[in-house]
């Protein structure tokens, strides 16, 4: 995009880029440095030796896995229906879902609280899984429908001519073709549910049910103002998502871009 034919301008632009990126990196460095201050790696040893810690990670993993499963099923079936099948008034249904994209999670606070305490789901993972999944579905349906729209109808029709019913068409034709968008949905939903803060804060009260986003607060309570331990805990909770992102970078960016460019 920019002029880089002369080495001098190329170095200039490289410098500009580096200077602009610096503020984004600085907090990350401060985080890692802070976590190693004082006792050094001992901070990590202290944090890791806490018997409660693995529970936070297990709960977050369970939460993410359940949300991903629910969202995938709803998204793929809905994308197939909206894009390739006959549904009377389907655009109305589609807009009903899209309107939910504007919905801030905090709006659900009072009704969810009342409902969840009434059905006795308070302080269980389900109280978080269901609303988090429901809030993700509108966006992932939008993503997946755009993708499925790009698959030629002729493929579905020829499958039908060959005698495949709708279920087989879905299973044998559509599913294999939607792998790229499935990957994007999985990565997006994983990061969103792993990072969810408000709903766990509200509905998960005891440490044995809580998720990793509540770990820093838990440690603030435990270690008072020993910031080094809090930062070590923060680094540990951040690592899984950063690793997931770095490994699956391609899918992640493609998924995000595909959704907003339509």
């Amino acid at each position: 995009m920019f002029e880089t034919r002369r080495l001098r301008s190329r170095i200039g632009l490289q410098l500009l880029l580096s200077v602009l990126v610096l503020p984004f990196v600085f907090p990350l460095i401060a985080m890692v440095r802070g976590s190693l201050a004082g006792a050094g790696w001992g901070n990590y040893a202290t944090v890791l030796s806490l018997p409660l810690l693995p529970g936070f990670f297990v709960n977050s993993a369970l939460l993410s896995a359940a949300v991903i499963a629910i969202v995938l099923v709803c998204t793929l079936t809905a994308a197939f229906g909206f894009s390739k099948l006959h549904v009377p008034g389907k655009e109305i249904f589609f807009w009903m879902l899209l309107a939910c994209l504007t919905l801030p999670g905090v709006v659900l606070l009072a009704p969810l609280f009342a409902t969840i305490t009434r059905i006795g789901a308070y302080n269980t993972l389900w109280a978080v899984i269901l609303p988090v999944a429901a809030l993700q579905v509108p966006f992932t349906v939008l993503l997946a429908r755009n993708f499925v729209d790009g698959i030629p109808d002729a493929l579905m029709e020829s499958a039908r001519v060959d005698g495949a019913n709708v279920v087989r068409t879905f299973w044998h034709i559509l599913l294999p073709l939607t792998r790229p968008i499935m990957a994007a949905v999985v990565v997006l939903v994983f990061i969103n549910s792993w990072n969810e803060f408000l709903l766990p804060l509200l509905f998960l009260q005891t440490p044995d049910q809580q998720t990793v986003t509540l770990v820093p607060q838990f440690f603030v309570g435990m270690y008072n103002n020993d910031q080094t331990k809090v930062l070590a805990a923060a680094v540990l909770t951040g690592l899984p998502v950063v690793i997931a992102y770095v490994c699956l970078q391609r899918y992640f960016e493609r998924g995000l871009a595909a959704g907003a460019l339509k």
Partner: protein
Amino acid sequence: MTTTVPETLATTRTGSPGRRRGVRRPAGLPWILPALLFSAGLLYYCIGYTGYISTLDWDGAAPIQQQVGAENFVRMVQDPVFWGALRNTAIFFVVTFSVQVALGIVFASLLHSRLWFKTFYKVLIFIPVVLATATAAPVFRQIYAPDGALNELLGAVGLAGLQQTWLANGAFALAIVITVQIWHSTGVVFVLYYAAIGQIEPEVVEAARIDGAGDLRILVSIVWPGVRGTTIAIAILSAIGSLKTFDVPFLITSGGPSYATEFLGTMIYRVSVAFSDVGYGAALSVVLLLLALVAAIIINVGGRRGER
């Protein structure tokens, strides 16, 4: 909006032979039902319930719920904290949107140029997006603490006179909340612009360059109009995002000092959870939801009109 003409067209269309859609598509209602019943069902149920609660004087747990009509809404209009939260949201939106658009376009254009280590830079810009605010908050509180990294830095370069108790000052606290948000979500804006700029044809840029356009001119006259659709999408995302703002102010300033960083999200949380005034919280939620819908519609319609 439209007359009955499309309907008559539709009937002739289905009747006409030779249309490719000769074979009727199989019924798809059962396929969209799981998503509709689960997601739309749960969310619309909650919205309706919120609407009902907003007419109550209720603490969220007691069996006694007193109908008060529109009283919660009247109270809201008279509540200076509510107007303060709206003002903060507006400032927050204008600043985060402008800074992120500028940074996003510059980053995306730079990373579409021939430079070294591009993937490395992309990853660095995007890591803050995948980190939860809850994970990043401790380090920001530490940076801006009275004995934190920022004051230390100022002291080290001989500007000790500028040292502040940053988070205790309303104006600085709001600026810090905005900064953290920019740090957190510029990566998203960058990725969207990166994809959009990838669709601008290189020939156009080449031709402009042959005609003597410099880097800045290309940015203003070719890139900026070329990514217009993306800018509108980002405006919607960031308007709704500003209205939704909760994690950053809650975790870094808890809405303080004295409501200087209060947003609708943090206000709803404080009113409903800390003050157990669920009816008032629900009334605030209804207004927040309406504002988000209206913002999305205005930006969408405005952006489309500008295109013509």
